[in-house]
C-alpha cells in the first residue's frame, strides 16, 4: 500500500504542474491586461507605470518561471487587484465553496440512494417509471435556469427560503469558534438548500439511476439468488449483500463528482451571490488577475487529487484486485 501511495503522490505533483502550466498559458495568450487596472480616464504615463509595476511587460517565460519558483516555496503570488497573497484570497472563500459542494454531495447521495433502491425494488412499476422520468428531467435542466426559477418561486413567491447570502459554518470551525459554528448550522442550511439543489440535481439524478442499475445487476447475481433461496428474509438479503456492492460505483463516482460539482459552482455562486471560490475565480479571469487564477486552480487541483486519492484507497480496500496493480 505504501509504494502505491507514494507513486500516486508523485503523479499528483506532475498533474499540478501540468494544471498550472495550462492555466498560465491560456491566460497569457491574450493581449495586454494593463487597461483593466487603470481607471478609464488614466493618463499615458499612468498606464506605462502600471504595466511595469504589475510585471506585464516581462516576457512570458520569465513570468511563468517566477511563478513556478514561487510555487516551490509555497508562494503563489500577490493578487493584482487587492494586494493580498493570492492564496489567502482563495482560502478565505474556500470554506463557503466547500460548504456548498459538500452539502450538494450529501443531498445528492443521501437522496439518490433510497430513491435508487426503491426504484430497483419496484422495477417495472409506475413508481419506477415515474422516478426514472423525474431523474431524467433532473439531468436535462440547465443550471442557472434552475437557480433563477428556484429563487423566484421558492424564495420570492413562497418565501420559504432566503434568496441569497451566506451564513458561515466551516469558517467559524476553522477559527475555533465551534459554539457559534454549530448554532449557525440550521440557519446555514436554509441558505444552502437552493444553491445545493441547483448544483446537485444533476448528480442526484445520475446517482439515483446508477444506484438503481447497479442494484438491479446485483440483485440478479448468483449469490443473491442463493441467499434468497436459503430463506433469508428479503430485507436482510438486500441490505447486507446488495447494498454494499451497489454502493461501489457511487463511491467511484464521488471523486469525479467533486470535480463535476465544482464546475456547477461557478454558475451557481453567481446566481445566488454565494461568496465562494467560484465567483472569485470567474472575476479573476475576467480581470486577468493571474495570480488569483493560478492559486485557485492549484487549490482545486490539490483538493481534487486528494479526494481521488482517498477514494482510490477506500476502493482498493473494498476490491483487492486493484491493490496488486
Amino acid at each position, binding site marked *: 500500500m505504501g509504494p502505491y501511495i507514494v507513486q500516486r503522490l508523485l503523479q499528483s505533483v506532475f498533474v499540478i504542474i501540468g494544471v498550472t502550466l495550462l492555466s498560465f498559458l491560456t491566460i497569457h495568450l491574450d493581449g495586454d491586461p494593463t487597461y483593466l487596472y487603470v481607471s478609464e480616464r*488614466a493618463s499615458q504615463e*499612468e498606464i506605462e507605470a502600471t504595466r511595469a509595476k504589475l510585471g506585464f511587460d516581462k516576457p512570458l517565460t520569465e513570468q511563468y518561471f517566477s511563478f513556478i519558483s514561487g510555487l516551490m516555496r509555497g508562494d503563489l503570488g500577490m493578487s493584482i487587484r487587492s494586494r493580498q497573497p493570492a492564496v489567502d484570497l482563495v482560502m478565505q472563500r474556500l470554506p463557503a465553496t466547500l460548504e456548498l459542494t459538500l452539502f450538494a454531495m450529501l443531498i445528492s447521495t*443521501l437522496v439518490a440512494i433510497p430513491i435508487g*433502491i426503491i426504484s430497483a425494488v419496484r422495477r417495472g412499476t409506475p413508481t419506477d417509471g415515474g422516478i426514472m422520468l423525474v431523474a431524467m428531467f433532473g439531468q436535462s435542466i440547465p443550471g442557472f435556469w434552475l437557480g433563477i426559477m428556484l429563487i*423566484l418561486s421558492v424564495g420570492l413567491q413562497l418565501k*420559504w427560503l432566503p434568496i441569497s447570502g451566506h451564513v458561515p459554518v466551516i469558517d467559524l470551525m476553522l477559527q475555533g469558534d465551534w459554539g457559534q459554528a454549530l448554532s449557525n448550522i440550521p440557519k446555514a442550511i436554509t441558505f444552502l438548500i437552493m444553491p445545493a439543489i441547483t448544483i446537485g440535481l444533476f448528480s442526484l439524478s445520475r446517482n439515483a439511476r446508477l444506484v438503481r442499475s447497479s442494484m438491479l445487476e446485483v440483485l440478479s447475481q448468483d449469490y443473491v439468488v442463493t441467499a434468497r433461496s436459503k430463506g433469508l428474509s428479503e430485507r436482510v438479503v438486500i441490505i447486507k449483500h446488495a447494498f454494499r456492492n451497489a454502493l461501489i460505483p457511487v463511491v467511484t463516482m464521488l471523486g469525479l463528482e467533486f470535480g463535476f460539482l465544482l464546475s456547477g459552482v461557478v454558475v451557481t455562486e453567481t446566481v445566488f451571490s454565494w461568496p465562494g471560490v467560484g465567483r472569485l475565480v470567474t472575476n479573476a479571469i475576467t*480581470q486577468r488577475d493571474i495570480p488569483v487564477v493560478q492559486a485557485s486552480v492549484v487549490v482545486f487541483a490539490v483538493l481534487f487529487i486528494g479526494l481521488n486519492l482517498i477514494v482510490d484507497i477506500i476502493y482498493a480496500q473494498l476490491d483487492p484486485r486493484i491493490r496488486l496493480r
Partner: protein
Amino acid sequence: MSRNPSRLGKLFLLTLLLVLIVPVIANAQTSDENTLVIAQSVDIGQLDPASVNSRSEANIFYHMYGTLFEIGDDGSITPYLANAYKVSEDGKEWTFTLNEGLTCHDGEALTAEDVAYSFERAADPANAFTGNTAGFVLPAVGYMGTRVDDDLNVTILTDRYQSIGLGLLSEVYIHCKDSYSAMTLEEAAQNPIGSGPYKFVEWVPDDHVTLAKVDGFTLRETTFATQIWRVIPEASTRVAELIAGNVDVIGNVPPDQVEAVNGSGVAGVQAVQGTRRIYVGFQFGENFKDAPGYDALQKTDVRVALQYAIDVPTICAALLGTECTRATGLVNDPNGNPNLQPYPYDPVKAGELLDAAGYPKDANGVRFETTLMGPRGRYLNDANVVQAIAQYLTDVGVVTTADIRDWADYRQLTGPKEVGPMFFLGSGGGTWNALYDMADLSAPDAGTNYTNWQNEEWFTLWNSLADIRDAGQEREVINKMLEVFYNDPPWLLLYFQPDFYGVSNRLDWQARRDEQIVIYNAKLK
C-alpha cells in the same frame, strides 16, 4: 412494518425532509429599523482610500472618509471637512480652511497636515497607486504639491488654472497621517481608518461590508446605526431581495423589471436621468484605415447623415425603459449649448444625404458596409442597444455588422484605441460644469479621446480657455465648441444613460444623477 426495503427508503427520505424543514420554519427575516441594507453588483477590491478604482468602492468609501467639500449632482457646493476655500490670483493655488476639532476614527486629530498627507501619499511614485485619485484627479488638476500653512489651512499647488478644480480636489478621500504612515501598503489595503460619518466594521469578501455610525461625527446628520453593503451580482436576485424586503436600496434595476418593483407594494423604482454619455464613436485613427467603411466615415457629410438614421427615442423607450431626449453633444443638461436641436429620426433624409455624399444604394440596396464594435455587460442593456443601432444603420443601406465583446476584452481594446470603425462606449460625466464633460477631448492625443478626433478648431478653442477667467466669456467659447462638435460630429449622438434605483418604501431618500450612492442622509419615512 413489513420487511419491505422500499418502505425503509421512504422512511429515510421523510426523515431527511423533516430535518431540512425545521430550519426552514425557523427562517424568518425582518428588516431592522436601525440597519440600512444596500446591494451593489460588484464587490470592493481593497480598502485603501488612495486606491479606489470602481464606482462600488467609491460609494462605500464616501461614507467612511470625509472630503474637503461636497459637490451635489446639481453642482451645488457644500462645505464638509473644509468650510472655506480660496484660489490664488494665477489660479494655481487652492487654499482650504478646515473645521476645528476634526478627528479620524482612531482618535487622531485631523488637521491641515493630514489633508496634505492624503494628497502626497496618493501622488508618491513609490506607492505606485492606480485608481481615481492618482490616475485621474491629480493629473487632471495638474497637481504639483502641497503646502501646510497652519493647523487649519492647507494649500494644494497646481500647474495651471482649472475651473473644475474644486470638484476634482473634492474627490480625494482625506485620511490621517500618523495612522497611515505607520502601515505598509498591504496593511492599509486591509485596515481602513476613516474620517467620515461611518466607520469600518468588517468586510466579508464577496459578501458584504459593514459600517457603523460614528457618534462623534457632527458635520452631518445620520440616522441608521449600521450600514450593510451587500454584493449581489445577478440582477434578478438583487431585485428579488428588494421585493422580499431584505434590501433597502439597489442599483441597476433592469428596465424590464421596473414594473414588477413598482407593483410590489414593498419598493419603488427611482428613474434618474444619469450623467453618463453614451455614444457611438467614429474611429479616425490610422490603424483602421483599411477597415470597411473607414473612408466613408471620414467624411463629415456621411457622419451627419448617419445621425438621422437612428431612432434614439424609440431605443430609449423600448430598451432602456425611459423617455429620453437625444443628446446634442457631449455635455449634460443644463450645461449644453441651448441653440442646438437634437438630430431627429429621419431615415429618408439620411438616405438623401448619403446619396449626396456619394454613397448611393447599389443593386442590393447597399451603400457601404461597416462594423460596429460594442461591449456586453457594462452599460445598461448595451448588447441590445448595439444590435438595435446596427439594424437601424443597415436599414438605411449602411450594412453594419455588430461585433459584441465581453467588457473585460473590450476595455483592453478601447485603452489603446483599437476599436473601430465604429464603436459603442460610455463616458462618465457631471452636471456642475460643462468643461468636466468636455475634458474627454482635452487634447488630440488624450487618453480619453478614443476616436482620435483631430478637429483643429475644437482644440484651439479648448486651449484658449486657460486664459479666460470670466464666466460669460467662457460660456461663449463653450457654445462655439459645442457647435463645432455638432457639425463635425466625432460621435453618433445617442443619449445620457438613465439609472434605475430600487428603493424600499420605508426609506426617504433621493438617488443622485452621477451614479454615486450617497446615503448617509437617508431616513425612515
